[in-house]
């Protein structure tokens, strides 16, 4: 919700990507969120990811619901169509948009109130339906725009700014996404851009429901002592499973790794996810093991991050519905309207 125009000028020597775009071409309006808000870091990571992936900005449709997080699509990818829909209903709007044109990239941005409370059902059903999308929850455990109420991802025992202790069990969106069949599941932290950018890149190159739960501290209402979503708490308890590099063909392979330390997963579109293992035993292609690990580490008080699960050969909703390759929104009269003769045959069968 910007009231200020953003200057268009930029340095002539800004680096460009393969399409000749600079990073600035992926920016949006000036953010109106609080200074230091984790969400702005996520917007910056999205910009970085799209720039590095050489995505044409207008080939992205950015969708959101209502809330602080849902305002952010205005602050990145200004040349993309955006849709700030209804509270908790981004997943259905995104699903419809995706059905209409399977060729665009769909980026859904939501929050914990939007996805774990009012829109919990739509979150769940869009995942289980296999919509090809990147779904990012900017998770701060609190209602920001209405000034500090607990959200459904607030951990039990977490303390509100005014001192109330949360007595309700938290919803772990990662656990739900894993159970409901998301084929790319990651958790990250807005304070760890090195981890987050490649995770977003991997998700955007994934041809199925990709879900990222990104813990994003609310500096205004949930960054105090006793909160389990504060910068300090998350830094202390963050347990990264792996570090990801996304290799799309043109990026040179630079790092040297010890044998066995690296695992490569090729996605359906040819991109390679190079995972540097931080936990040797962790297998991100085993859904059941991922769920087990997640719960086990959570019980130990850790916040597990990284690429937690990947199915490199996902099926999406279009595959399930067996729709034609050509986007439905480009089919014309000849493809859609059966015509008068066919109608007369229908009439004949109704006499």
């Amino acid at each position, binding site marked *: *919700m*910007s009231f200020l125009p953003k200057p268009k000028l930029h340095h002539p020597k800004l680096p460009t990507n393969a399409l000749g775009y600079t990073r600035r071409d992926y920016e949006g309006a000036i953010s109106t969120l609080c200074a230091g808000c984790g969400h702005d870091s996520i917007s910056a990571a999205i910009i970085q990811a799209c720039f590095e992936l050489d995505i*044409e*900005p*207008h*080939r992205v*449709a950015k*969708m959101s619901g209502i809330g602080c997080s849902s305002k952010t*699509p*205005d602050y990145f990818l*200004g*040349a*993309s*169509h*955006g*849709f*700030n*829909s*209804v509270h908790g*209903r981004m*997943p*259905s*709007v*995104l*699903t*419809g*948009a995706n*059905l*209409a*044109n399977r060729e*665009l990239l769909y980026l859904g941005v939501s929050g914990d109130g939007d996805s774990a409370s009012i829109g919990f059902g*739509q979150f*769940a*059903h869009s995942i289980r*339906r296999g919509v090809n999308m990147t779904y990012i929850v900017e998770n701060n455990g609190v209602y920001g725009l209405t000034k500090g109420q607990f959200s459904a991802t607030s951990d039990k025992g977490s303390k509100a700014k005014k001192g109330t202790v949360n007595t309700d069990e938290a919803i772990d969106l990662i656990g739900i996404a894993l159970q409901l069949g998301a084929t790319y599941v990651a958790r990250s932290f807005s304070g760890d851009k090195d981890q987050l950018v490649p995770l977003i890149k991997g998700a955007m190159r994934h041809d199925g429901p990709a879900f990222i739960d990104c813990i994003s501290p609310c500096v205004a209402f949930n960054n105090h002592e006793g909160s389990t979503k504060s910068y300090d708490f998350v830094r202390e308890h963050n347990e990264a499973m792996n570090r990801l590099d996304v290799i799309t063909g043109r990026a040179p392979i630079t790092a040297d790794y010890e044998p066995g330390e690296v695992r490569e997963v090729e996605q359906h579109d040819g991109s390679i996810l190079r995972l540097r293992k931080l936990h040797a035993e962790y297998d991100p292609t085993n859904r059941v093991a991922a769920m087990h690990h997640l719960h086990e580490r959570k019980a130990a008080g850790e916040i597990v991050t990284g690429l937690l699960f990947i199915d490199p050969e996902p099926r999406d909703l*279009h595959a399930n*519905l*067996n*729709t*034609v*390759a050509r986007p*439905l*929104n*480009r*089919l*014309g*009269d000849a*493809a*859609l*309207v*059966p*015509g*008068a003769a*066919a*109608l*007369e045959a*229908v*009439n004949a069968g*109704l*006499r």
Partner: protein
Amino acid sequence: MRDPVTSAVTGTNDFVVKFANVNGSGSASANQLFAKAILRMGIPIASRNIFPSNIQGLPTWFEVRVSGEGHLGRRGGVDLMVAMNPQTWERDVAEIDPGGYLFYDSTRPVPRSRFREDIHVIGVPLTEMCNAAFTDARQRQLLKNIMYVGALSALLQIDPAVVETLLSEQYKGKEKLAKPNRDAFQMGRDWALANLACPLGLTLEPADKVGNRIYVDGNSAAGLGAVYGGATVCAWYPITPSTSLAEGFEKYCKKFRTEPDGRKRYAIVQAEDELASIGIVIGAAWNGARAFTATSGPGISLMQEFVGLSYFAEIPSVIFDVQRAGPSTGMPTRTQQSDVLAAAYASHGDTKHIVLFPEDPHECFAFGADAFDIADRLQQPVFVLLDLDIGMNDWLCEPFAWDDARRMDRGKVMTAEELEAGRVFGRYLDADGDGIPYRTYPGTHPSKGAFFTRGTSRDRFAKYTEVGAAYVDNMQRLLQKFETAKGIVPRPVLRQAAEPTRTGVIYYGSSSAAMREALAALEADGIHVDALRIRAFPFHQDVEAFIAAHDQVFVVEQNRDAQLRTLLMNECGIAPQQLIPVLHYDGTPITARFIRAAIGDKVLAQILPFAGAAAE
């Protein structure tokens, strides 16, 4: 006790037969056979299912009105009851008009006290014959139904050759199934001819009154209309009585929109609820596909917030509402026209929506297709209001028609070429003075034409603003657009009385058939009434002119609160006393008898005050 019957009800091609069955007993196809056979004899019929919210075991009825005159509304009353359900015996027997007929399965004796003295009783030992002829238990149950059709064919003079043709069509290539059906029909027929006085006073005589009309339900017709309207995305949640609309769309899509390799030129999602259904529709329409949902009243209630978004963000959406009796769960399998206001003013804030009122399946098809052009042209929600009576019953109606020269009208969509040529794009800019702005589909152009869609207020170039003047500017433009809509939606249809009159009647939707019959009857009584059938909201100026040209206007509706009348008063500034409500809302379809009595009594009371007082 009534007087013993002295005279029997008689009539040729003009009577009502009602079948009382048990849900799930397989009676539907036999009853359809009965109805279609009469149609094939060239005699118009109106048929209605009366069914419970249940799959198996509860009572269900099928009513066939035979009308050589072509009256398709419900008549009321029953001349011949085919009582096949012991559970409802008492009320079924009670419903028969004096002098009428009761047809029943006489295998087990029924005490004399359970009949009536003033009706004619026809017993046929259906179960006994079926058990003797067939061994399979399910077959015995199913064929008992065909057997009563056989007996009725003798009693009412249904042409057996027509039934033979229908069975051959139905079981084409399945001779194994055809034979027992044929046998059962013949057994019933032969038994009746040998043991009963055939024909009854009620008889059928071949006629030529059906013409090229078709016999179809409104939901299938609307689903087919959506196919012809170019809809590619359907998102829906199962709810009676709209479910068969989405299923109809799917059936015709399978037939007409499947590639040789099996891939589909359409997408149907059975969503998790009505909120997701309308959300998917709005997302798809935003992205340039034609999309719709089908639902009923409770679904409309759930969709309210999204409908407001569709209105304010100006995204075309089509919502078929097959109305049932509300409020709340109401009577889910009974008909009403009670969502008129809920549709017209859906959502919070100031909103007004396009509402179409088809009168029969023919118009369900036509409006089903037109709705997508209207939605695209006006960029807002369009409700198509069917009801259970039109939606779930087979109606005799004019055949579907299509002009091959017609093309989808996608409304004002700015293309990449136009953007490239430097054409000014403001998503909410009224460039043409009709209140309708231009839109772009996502992905159109690399650097031009992108905008941010939101349910919050914004300026003409889609930039967020809370400035009052900009908000008012936009809201006024939406009103301007609504004015434009009046010239786009289907116009009302006038039926002028034989003689000049100061009395008028306004009606809409499924009341049409009963209304036409009532008007003919009133005319025969010397009461002349001009009639206007409203087909859409916003109201065309013809509507105001019609009301102004009459001293009193009856408004015939199937709801308690006279919802269309409220809409007329509110939108056209009509004084309440000028609009007299005629309301039928018990869940059964409105009848000509009811309308005739309501209007006739009122008019007569004005002419002859004492007669009127006595009538009340």
